[in-house]
């Protein structure tokens, strides 16, 4: 059985779809950057978090963070030097702050209204819920890497 996919947190998804170079010829190619890569650059080079803090913020191991960050930088470099547009696209990402976990049935569920807190499980209606965090997944990934 495959291990469930990690849920990587992106707290601030971009509210625009990408970038276009100014002038130059029309491009037929684009660089597709996923939200995880965007978030890795934002945390590292905009928030100036160290890799440790940035990786824990995204809920992933440091080695995974390093890989995502490296890929992101290469994409930025490719776009800059070749004058290619960047288009943002989703990987396996759930946006932070609106996901909850139910302590009764174990499901995860989202809540659309960011202004209010969810008060019951979307599935079983239990009130025993908490905002979702996936530290356990991160640990299991680290353990796998050590083996």
């Amino acid at each position, binding site marked *: 059985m495959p291990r*469930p996919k990690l849920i990587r947190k992106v707290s601030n998804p971009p509210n625009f779809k990408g970038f276009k170079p100014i002038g130059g010829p029309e491009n037929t190619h684009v660089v597709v950057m996923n939200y995880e890569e965007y978030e890795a650059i934002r945390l590292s080079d905009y928030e100036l978090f160290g890799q440790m803090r940035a990786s824990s913020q995204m809920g992933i191991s440091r080695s995974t963070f390093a890989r995502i960050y490296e890929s992101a930088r290469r994409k930025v470099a490719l776009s800059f030097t070749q004058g290619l547009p960047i288009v943002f696209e989703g990987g396996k990402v759930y946006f932070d702050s609106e996901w909850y976990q139910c302590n009764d049935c174990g499901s995860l569920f989202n809540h659309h209204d960011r202004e209010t807190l969810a008060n019951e499980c*979307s599935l079983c209606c239990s009130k025993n819920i908490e905002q979702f965090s996936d530290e356990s997944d991160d640990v299991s990934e680290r353990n796998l890497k050590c083996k």
Partner: protein
Amino acid sequence: MKVAITSTGNSTDAVLDSRFGRCSWFIIYDTELKSTEFIPNPNIDSIEGAGIASARLIASKGAEKVISGEFGAKVKGVFDSLNIKLIVIKEENKTIKDIIKLFQK
């Protein structure tokens, strides 16, 4: 309220299909009527866009919530814009019957 559940088979004894866009069956469960409708996923062999097409199918059935093992970010965005709530069950081998029972608590 109608709820869509991704299923590996066309009976409530089947287990949850962990893939959303490429699941085998969609089950539309009506919590008031306690009725189930089984829809084979027409997008199972699509090269791309299976998630989005499946999201539209579910919306056309009037579901307010959808249950699966995982959702990609694109699909999540589509459901957000349709105001359809997502529920993720990570536990493997959970049967549709067991999931439906949770709604009846």
